């Protein structure tokens, strides 16, 4: 197994996300980076993972072109179930079936709350995003929520301007006190620099694993608060040459996700 040298931070984030998935799991998957991370897992170590999308899709195999979003018509012929949002967000997600949920985000705070709504005051925003689809449902209802986003300082405020998708709210028991089920909540935040998890008691985010090309110093600079570092902080394995080949040649041969990453980024002030 040869490790790759020549990989990008986005590729490392995608592969890192895919490593959270075990074979046979049921995934509810949002748009952007989660699409490619989950398809990559399905192509490599989790061929029996089932992928559910919010519009009413259960996919059991990889489409012959990469979906540009979760409503892409190319998924219709790879689906074992197509119907409506009450099938996937209702009978699958609210029904408690997914093992993991994957979400993109504009930014994420100390307790894993996600904002994909607006920057500044909601009633008079400095920048208005176009809305969050089913993201609130994913974060409210899924057992283990994994968020994927670029590691940039503006994406990690201590407190988001608007809670689109509830994480652990104010930490501690505040999530359950708001009425959310106790077996649900953020499981990991996966960035272009590392993998972050949540303390079981305080529910504060901490660095669990960082990537071989990065450093803890660089990671800390990418947060607007003083991010905690695990006592047992780990360094991730780099991608193998074969992983990078599969990702580039088989999953995204046209570079839809892998090229021109800026154009794929959710705006963030």
């Amino acid at each position, binding site marked *: 197994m040869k490790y790759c040298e020549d990989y990008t931070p986005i590729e490392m984030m995608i592969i890192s996300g895919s490593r959270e998935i075990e074979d046979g799991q049921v995934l509810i998957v949002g748009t952007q980076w989660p699409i490619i991370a989950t398809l990559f897992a399905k192509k490599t170590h989790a061929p029996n993972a089932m992928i559910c999308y919010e519009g009413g899709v259960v996919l059991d195999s990889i489409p012959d072109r990469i979906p540009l979003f979760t409503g892409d018509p190319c998924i219709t*012929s790879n689906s074992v179930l197509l119907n409506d949002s009450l099938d996937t967000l209702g009978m699958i997600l609210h*029904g408690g079936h997914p093992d993991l949920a994957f979400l993109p985000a504009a930014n994420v705070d100390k307790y894993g709350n996600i904002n994909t709504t607006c920057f500044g005051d909601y009633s008079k925003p400095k920048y208005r995003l176009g809305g969050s689809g089913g993201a609130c449902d994913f974060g409210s209802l899924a057992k283990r929520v994994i968020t994927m986003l670029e590691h940039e300082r503006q994406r990690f405020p201590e407190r988001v301007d608007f809670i689109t998708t509830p994480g652990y709210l104010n930490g501690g028991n505040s999530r359950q006190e708001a009425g959310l089920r106790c077996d649900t909540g953020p499981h990991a935040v996966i960035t272009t620099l590392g993998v972050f998890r949540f303390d079981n008691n305080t529910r504060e985010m901490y660095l669990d694993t960082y990537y071989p090309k990065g450093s803890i110093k660089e990671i800390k600079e990418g947060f607007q608060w003083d991010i905690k570092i695990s006592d047992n902080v780990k360094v991730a394995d780099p991608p193998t040459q074969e992983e990078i080949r599969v990702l580039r040649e088989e999953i995204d041969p*046209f570079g839809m996700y892998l090229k021109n990453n800026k154009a794929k980024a959710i705006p963030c002030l």
Partner: protein
Amino acid sequence: MDSKIITIKEAITDLLHDGEVLYLGGFLQHEPYAAVHEIIRQKKKGLTVSKCAGMIALDQLIGAGCVDKVISTYIWNPLPKPAHALRRCIEKGIPHKIEMEEYSILSLTLAYFAGALDLPFVAAKTLLGSDFPQHSSFLGENKMKIIESPFNGEKVCLIPPLKHDLGIIHVQRADSFGNAQTWGIMGDSKYGINSCSKVIICAEEIVSTEVIKRDPNRTIIPGFKVNAVVKEPWGGHPSYISGYYDIDWRHFSFYDKATQTLDGFENYLREWVYGVKDRNEYINKIGKDKLDELRPKSWNSNPVDYGYCSKFQGDYLL
């Protein structure tokens, strides 16, 4: 993925345990008679059986003594012919007393819907003024509640979810992983079968996953929720499966006459349930001529196209 195909005998042995809450799918169509007969042969006890509406499947389970509690809206052979075992049970406690929770079809379907989605409750404008809400038995206060709406003060009936340990339905076709497809009259079945922790799919035909993927809008439950798939042609007899066989009215008429007495009911079970080891023996007993009479003339759908362009056009977004 591994195939989930087993026999109905194995499926009932492995997946249904005494005392569990069992959902039976099928609203006339899609009733799993082969599975019901196997449950009787295996002498399962103490079941709570939830079945919205149908023919005589529930009557047979009740008469055979498998059932302690029932959730239903309709147990006839069909209306206006009574289900005799049900009457003997409720009026005379034969073979033993059962408890019953009655609903209307809409409220029970909404309870299954809430169960499938695991919603805390759904509010409706039915059941108000009727005697259903105050007559609850084993569900007690949790059957339904009439409150004033927090929005406008009007009276509403809150219907909480019904969930089930095991669900069984007999469908037109499924693949070996349990992706199950149906057509025709559906009643409560989609919501009911999706409200179960464990699921057995009985199917007239096992098809390739490609057949499923060529028409994914017909799938009522995804395979990952399904524990076992049973190939059981004619498994819905004496009721019907659109496109496969019609109702065997003579059998329902025969059942009506045969089961009016307790002896007659027990003879029926001896002959048609205990007396055959599986559905194959049952259909041999029905006989080829009778089966041929039940075969439908065809009324085929036209194919529809789910196609898309395989050519990648996303370069315009790069």
